[in-house]
């Protein structure tokens, strides 16, 4: 809990600062307050209306939307967190997500298989290609000493350019049916769709539950297995780990493969759960958000899950702010500000140490 304190305080300050910024821009405190109120309502559901009218959709739809977004953020957040734990900075989650999404869209639309095979295969393909994309950066690092920050930035743009400006508009583009012009790849088959949980009222699908399960699994792996222990040791002190007989390069490869697979899976869940095809452009930069989610979660799998739940909810609420003249990406501003504050490491160390000092001094 103590480790979470900097994050919680940062998020609180970020919410406050963004409120002031919005009030100054809109020139009205009451309008800003209404916008923030709409955000909360859009995130947690309109409970008063539910109790008055008994209309379950008023609560289920917002919560479902929040969980859908939280699931995707959890996956990319985990991806960045896992790499961070071995001391690698995977900025490339966005690129890995894009290639994963394309793989899922391709398998989902082009193969016809029974549902029991089709969905797992599409998800597996997304994870595998995301993993492969991340391994390019790992290989460059281990064999050529190329810093992973630089290689993953490059790989992001390579992925986006090749997928969105070539494959999706060229070879993999859906063939137009009748007079309707279509964009993006062909619609995936129903056998590859992630089943929806509340079919009538929300887009919430099994992807969210998969993400939560994976967060728990990664947490167990990191905290309770030998491999996880060794990975953490590599992240904390690579030379000491090497001296202790841990194969550093093996742990780096392993962590980066898992990291890429998680980001690829985020792409798969996005396509098979909500988009149902690869659209003309994948407008959602969940991969870049993963950096913020992971670090606000202090690079801990469960921390990432918690921050993904929080920001997923805010984002679902963001769309409701439009009514008050606030762009729906406003929660991303809160998220960015929180990341900026969390980053000031020394500040938090000093602040928290001071708190310990005052606490021990006070009884005397």
């Amino acid at each position, binding site marked *: 809990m103590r480790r979470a304190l900097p994050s919680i305080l940062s998020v609180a300050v970020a919410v406050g600062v963004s409120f002031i910024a919005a009030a100054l821009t809109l020139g009205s405190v009451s309008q800003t307050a209404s916008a923030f109120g709409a955000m909360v309502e859009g995130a947690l559901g309109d409970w008063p209306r539910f109790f008055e009218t008994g209309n379950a959709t008023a609560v289920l739809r917002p919560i479902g939307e929040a969980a859908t977004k939280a699931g995707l953020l959890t996956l990319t957040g985990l991806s960045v967190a896992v790499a961070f734990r071995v001391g690698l900075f995977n900025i490339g989650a966005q690129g890995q997500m894009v290639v994963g999404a394309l793989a899922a869209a391709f398998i989902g639309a082009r193969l016809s298989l029974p549902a029991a095979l089709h969905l797992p295969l599409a998800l597996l393909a997304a994870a595998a290609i995301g993993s492969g994309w991340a391994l390019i950066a790992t290989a460059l690092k281990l064999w050529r000493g190329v810093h992973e920050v630089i290689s993953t930035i490059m790989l992001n743009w*390579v992925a986006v350019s090749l997928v969105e400006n070539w494959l999706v508009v060229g070879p993999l583009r859906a063939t137009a049916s009748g007079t309707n012009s279509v964009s993006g790849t062909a619609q995936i088959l129903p056998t590859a769709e992630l089943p929806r949980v509340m079919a009538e009222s929300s887009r919430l699908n099994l992807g969210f539950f998969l993400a939560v399960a994976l967060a728990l699994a990664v947490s167990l792996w990191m905290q309770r297995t030998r491999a996880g222990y060794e990975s953490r040791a590599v992240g904390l002190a690579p030379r000491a780990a090497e001296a202790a007989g841990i194969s550093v390069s093996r742990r780096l490869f392993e962590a980066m493969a898992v990291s890429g697979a998680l980001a690829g899976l985020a792409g798969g869940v996005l396509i098979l759960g909500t988009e149902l095809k690869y659209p003309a452009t994948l407008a959602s930069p969940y991969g870049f958000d993963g950096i913020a989610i992971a670090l606000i979660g202090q690079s801990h799998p469960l921390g990432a899950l918690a921050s993904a739940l929080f920001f997923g909810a805010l984002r679902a609420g963001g769309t409701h702010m439009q009514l008050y003249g606030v762009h729906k990406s406003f929660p991303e501003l809160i998220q960015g500000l929180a990341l900026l504050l969390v980053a000031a490491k020394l500040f938090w160390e000093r602040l928290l140490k001071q708190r310990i000092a005052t606490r021990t001094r006070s009884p005397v």
Partner: protein
Amino acid sequence: MLQLVDALLSSTLDAAPALVFAALGAVLSERAGVVNVGVEGMMRAGAFVAAVAALVMPTPLGVVLGMLAGAALAALHAWLCIRFRADQVVSGMAINLVMLALGTFLLEARFSPNGTPSIEQLTRWGSGVPVLGGHTALTWLALAAPFALHAVIQRTRFGLRLRAAGEKPQAVAAMGVSVSRLRFVAVTCGGLLAGLGGASLSVATLDRFEHNMPAGLGFMAVAAMVFGRWTPLGAAAAAAFFAFGNALRIGLTSSAPQVLEVIPQGVLLALPYLLTLLLLAGQKRGAGKAPAALGTPYDPELR
């Protein structure tokens, strides 16, 4: 044919300043030992502030304010990294995320969702002069700036100290010079240049701020810096080369679409990044590398 080459050169010279300034800004910051992946966000700030300021004041003054906006963000980055030992990559990415959302929010709340109203572009000079004529002062400046920065970094006392701060900061400290102050100045000046790069997008290349500016150019500037091996001349040459590639691609879509059926546009778009990756993959370990102390906060206790 000659006409085609002329048009291509002209559009390269139009688009290059943004990339050149941003790449130079990144070089300045990284040579002093501070990673700068926040160029994208600093460019966005520069582009937005310049376009908005030019609505109410002369455009050149708007450009200056745009530069200052880039510098302010860079100062924040430097402050977090130097004073509070923030992870430099995290701080840079945070600046990108904040600016992406803040720019969109301000644009939508104050103007229209797509862009700000048109402003008066910077004046284009010397339309009679062959090749170089018909461009704004920024193009001319972009041609001179790499040499100026090269001279500063390689030939002045400040430049020597700056390089030392990026290679072995302890040596700088041993001379009695403050590493923190040196790095702060370098990063902030880098932000000034990144802001100028962004501003040149909204006042010279276009005449307004568009919602997705600079659309990844900041990351391309980082690629140019790496491609140019962290030297001003190399980075500027790489930036100009990438700008030429962009101009060629845009030229091909309008004048020779049949070429794009053989080489798809997406492949051309990915080319700058692919080339940078290939260059990095091809070189030996330790050759043409980043400054030695890049990314590590200066710790006076270490030797």
